[in-house]
């Protein structure tokens, strides 16, 4: 992409990580070291939603994940001068608790006497629409539901809009909630038997082609079910395309969360960058379809000071299927 895209705002509602004022206050040392044996699920530390969603009439219909997503978006927009030219959201499973409530009532009441609210709020684009209603923003509004590449698809859409001059700034974010039912189903399917951890979270970003910030979103790449060797090839092509040498990557944010069944690819990539500092985060957040948005948030927080890494590579894959790379660059790297 020819246009330089800056990340001018970032917010996160996430489990466990010590809260620090955003932006650009984290260092790699702030991330507690990876210990794989902690509990196998992570629930978000939630803010007081009343402070952000002040209208009780609006708040009362919102499920937990809707409040989480909307609040993260409002936090991200709080310092923004102008209204974004697009609202692009991403989710793997959407508003689960409302979906579960609707389906449960459907069965219990034999398809009769169904409450309208959980049905209305169970759609994937609920958060995107609530952001539009709450900020009175009638611009382009889209939601991506593409399993393990939902967030990256939203990010790509936002980057293309900026590169094509369709907007000067775009709001891109993701949200995911972990409910007791989804945790039980995932456990039964065996997703956590080899060290994986369930999680949830909401992250939002304001991307701008006009306003500058210390953090540049350089590029992203996808790979679908590659072999380990194909993945390395993909990584090499990605760096080449962006005129970056392996040695230039000062930090690798790796999605390895201690799941033995997913380790091969992370190991391959980490060994491919032997000189690079590796930071891991899934022991804090757990794993979910849009968790790479947390890695991006972490990257934006770490980057931006004079002594920060100049280039950060984010690598993640979701259950060995969808693999993604995101390249961040410091504006001071000139």
């Amino acid at each position, binding site marked *: 992409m020819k246009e330089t895209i800056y990340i001018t705002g970032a917010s996160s509602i996430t489990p466990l990580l010590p809260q620090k004022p955003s932006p650009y206050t984290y260092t790699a040392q702030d991330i507690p070291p990876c210990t794989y044996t902690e509990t196998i699920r992570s629930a978000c530390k939630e803010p007081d939603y009343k402070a952000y969603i002040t209208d009780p009439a609006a708040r009362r219909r919102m499920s937990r994940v809707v409040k989480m997503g909307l609040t993260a978006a409002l936090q991200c927009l709080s310092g923004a001068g102008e209204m974004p030219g697009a609202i692009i959201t991403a989710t793997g499973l959407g508003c689960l608790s409302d979906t579960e409530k609707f389906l449960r009532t459907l069965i219990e009441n034999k398809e009769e*006497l169904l409450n309208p609210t959980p049905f209305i709020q169970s759609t994937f684009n609920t958060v995107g629409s609530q952001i539009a209603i709450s900020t009175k923003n009638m611009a382009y509004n889209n939601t991506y539901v593409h399993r393990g590449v939902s967030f990256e698809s939203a990010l790509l859409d936002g980057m293309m809009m900026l590169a094509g001059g369709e907007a000067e700034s775009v709001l891109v974010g993701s949200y995911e909630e972990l409910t007791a039912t989804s945790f039980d189903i995932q456990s039964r399917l065996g997703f956590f038997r080899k060290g994986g951890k369930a999680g949830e979270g909401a992250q939002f970003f304001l991307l701008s082609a006009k306003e500058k910030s210390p953090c540049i979103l350089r590029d992203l790449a996808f790979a679908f079910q590659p072999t380990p060797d194909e993945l390395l090839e993909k990584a090499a092509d990605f760096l080449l395309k962006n005129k970056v040498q392996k040695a230039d990557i000062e930090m690798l944010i790796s999605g390895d969360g201690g799941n033995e069944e997913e380790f091969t690819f992370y190991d391959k990539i980490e060994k491919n960058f032997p000189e690079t500092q590796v930071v891991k985060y899934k022991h804090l957040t757990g794993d979910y379809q849009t968790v790479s948005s947390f890695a991006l948030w972490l990257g934006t927080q770490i980057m931006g000071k004079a002594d920060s890494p100049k280039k950060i590579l984010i690598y993640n894959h979701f259950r060995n299927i969808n693999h993604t790379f995101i390249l961040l660059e410091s504006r001071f790297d000139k």
Partner: protein
Amino acid sequence: MHFINELKTHIIEELNLEELTPDEMDIDLPLFGDEGLGLDSIDVLELILILEKYYGLKISTPKEGKQIFRSVRTIADYIAANQQQ
């Protein structure tokens, strides 16, 4: 009416009026409009479901609903009158 507290509880739970308790809910307060609880058209559907689900009563005409759903008292009156029939 002995069931008024139970009715208030159903309304609070089904409409997610989380900041209200049954004791705080004035039975004569209008349910709709700025001077009342500020409920809307989706809430009407929820109220219709409460009548059907918990009291076995069906509202047949929309005109009827306007009178019934004016306040908690009017809903309770409707339940009392129709359940006795």
